[in-house]
């Protein structure tokens, strides 16, 4: 199996490349840049792409996935990310390209899972099974986009006023969104601790903090 690996963190990329090569996978190109991935993929025509979701500013992993599919309609796509729900990275995320696989890093316990998912993605992309659903973490299914956005800003340390200004809503709405999030995640403690608790959940679900 020949794949292209796109990950903006150099250490993670190099360790993953080493691990995949040990499993007999040929990594034709590894890069952190969307432009480079597109160019090399067009030339080398890999079977699949293993993509990180967050690639810094500009296009994200899903954008790249659609770009790759346009030039290589049968390429298998696997998104490997710390974000348990892609909305945590960007509220506007689209559905994934048909047959794509979405893996959360902390749930991947073995490199063999990666290999198997890459194989599955190749099979599904060449098949006819559609994948029109948005990727939603079951834990986050009942949370609206607005609440996710509030959670994200809250984790960045913004005050209610600042969040309200960014979201163009009243502070009251922000307070309500926060209190719904608090009750949804069953966070206990004083006002301050609740915000910390929500931030912790955000960072856990975005892969910056271990779960539990």
């Amino acid at each position, binding site marked *: 199996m020949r794949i292209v690996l796109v990950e903006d*963190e*150099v*250490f993670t990329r190099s360790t993953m490349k080493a691990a995949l090569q040990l499993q007999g996978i040929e990594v034709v190109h590894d890069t952190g840049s969307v*432009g480079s991935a597109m160019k090399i993929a067009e030339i080398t025509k890999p079977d699949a792409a293993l993509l990180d979701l967050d690639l810094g500013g500009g*296009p994200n992993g899903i*954008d790249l996935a659609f*770009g790759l599919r346009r030039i290589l309609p049968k390429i298998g796509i696997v998104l490997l990310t710390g974000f348990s729900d892609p909305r945590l990275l960007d509220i506007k995320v689209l559905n994934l390209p048909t047959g794509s696989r979405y893996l959360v890093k902390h749930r991947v316990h073995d490199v063999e899972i990666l290999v198997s998912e890459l194989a599955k993605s190749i099979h599904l992309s060449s098949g006819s099974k559609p994948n029109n659903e948005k990727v939603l973490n079951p834990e986050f299914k009942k949370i609206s986009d607005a609440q996710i956005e509030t959670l994200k800003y809250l984790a960045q340390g913004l005050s209610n006023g600042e969040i309200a200004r960014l979201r163009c809503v009243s502070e009251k709405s922000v307070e309500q969104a926060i209190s719904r999030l608090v009750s949804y995640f069953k966070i206990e403690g004083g006002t301050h601790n609740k915000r910390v608790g929500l931030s912790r959940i955000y960072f856990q679900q975005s892969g*910056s903090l271990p779960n539990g």
Partner: protein
Amino acid sequence: MVNTTKLNLGGAHAISYKLGFGLLPFLIFGVPLTINHKISNLEFLQWCWAAAIGTLLAAIFLLICDKTFLKNRRTKPVPNSWIFALGAALGAIKGSSTEIIASSWFHIAGLSYKSIVVRTLNSSVLGLLMISLLSYVNFWWHSIRNVREELAQDLRNFESTFLPLNMGDDQLLREIEERLADAKSAFVTKFTGQEVTQPLEVAKYLRRMAQELIRPMSHKINERSGGRFKKTHFIRQLLLLLPEAISPSLPWLVALCIATNLRIAVESYGVWKGSVFLVSVSGLLLLIAQGIKVTLKNLKPNWISILTIITVASLINTILANLINNFAFQSKNPFNFYLTFFWTITVFFLVLTAHAATSLSMLEIADLENKYYKKYLDNLKQTLMRNSQDVRLAKFLHGTLSTQLLTSAFRIENLSKTMNLPAIKNEILIAEQHMNIDLAPKTHQEDLNLETVIRDTFYKWGSLMQISGIFEIGAAEINSDVVMGMGDLINEVLSNAHRHGGASNIDLTLSATDSHLEFSAINNGQAIARFNKGYGSRLFDEVTGNSWNIENLPDNRGVKFTARVAVESTPNRKTN
């Protein structure tokens, strides 16, 4: 905030004889001589001598207490009641001995056995109040000092990695770059001698780099910028908190007023008339305290205005008390204007400062931001604006850079644990030396150039769409906020075209007039069926001030976006 520190007047911070000695001289003049006859200048001088000797005796008593039952108070605190008793005894000794000396040695007329008893009782109440107040202030003062020392120790722990203060931005950036370069060299040196390196070791190193190098630097820069932890001199902080201390101080003010005037009033006017006098004077004090509160509330508090207002208030209090004494009660007693004024101002400051000190300790220990920070927000806003550059840099270091390092460390650990990875080849680590940590674009935002921002955005999206454009923009001096806003706007337009429209081509034009940037983008993507308000529209509103439009082109030929952004621009030049 609820402070859980238990108030202990008889512990390590109990009244010390040194502090007591500092207070005692006030007692000499503190209580005006109001015997029921007009005294001569000589008698006044004699009274002062008697009061001085009485004070000396009280001081000796305090010294004895300090060396006996208070001796081990640091390790074995005495109960609060003992401190109250000490205060009462101190006042009684001072009052009685002064009266006895004045009558038996100096033979000042008007003093009697009865007046000695009354003065002793009066002085003991006054002593109790004063010593309690002093111990109370002393207790909180030491509490604050302890907290401050702990904080100072924390800061000293970072000392070795701190950068020098008062550096210019360029110098600071150079220093940071040098430090990062040093860290990278150390990184390479550490791993060069080995063929392979364990991932956990790499993660540990990254973690250390973030925690021991980057974070302390951000703390230092944040400190340099003043900002939320802006330091104000301790005495000034106390003065600024005086207005807030007025309400909780009122019981103390009234108690002291009654204690100091009780004997005078009763002796001078008799029980009933004296009580009316006492109520009048106490009411006057309350009224004036309220006046200070209202005045300071409507005035920007600074130490000069606070000192002035309290001095003026004391003066008014003295004049009005004088009027009550002389006219309303038609008293024959002499009214010592200066003593009353001195006493009023002392009481005001002593009581208010005591409460300000306690308020301050609450604020310092808990959350300086809450009351104090918000109250003087204007002042801090100016500081923040002045130092926004530093704040941005500190945030970048503290947030982005160190978080990147920590996240990398965490992921490497996670991957190595879950995937049972072999060691990483050192050549990969060595390559890390060339990792470019680009400070300049994030810190020197005023140097941002619209062309650079556009080029950067094109580079990111150019591989996913065919982008073409013509740009006629001002030569320079486009506000950095506008440049950043335009960068975000173009990024959003490109991302929408790709994500929602599936566009493969997009044509952009950007031109500048004297006052505006005109931007348009036409893509060949799918028409918009329904336009939803969301992040994009908010961004467009913010950047353009609601001057934007989006429309479908006829015959499903694509979508056109136009925007107009206000900006000051210089004469046109053409870039392509």
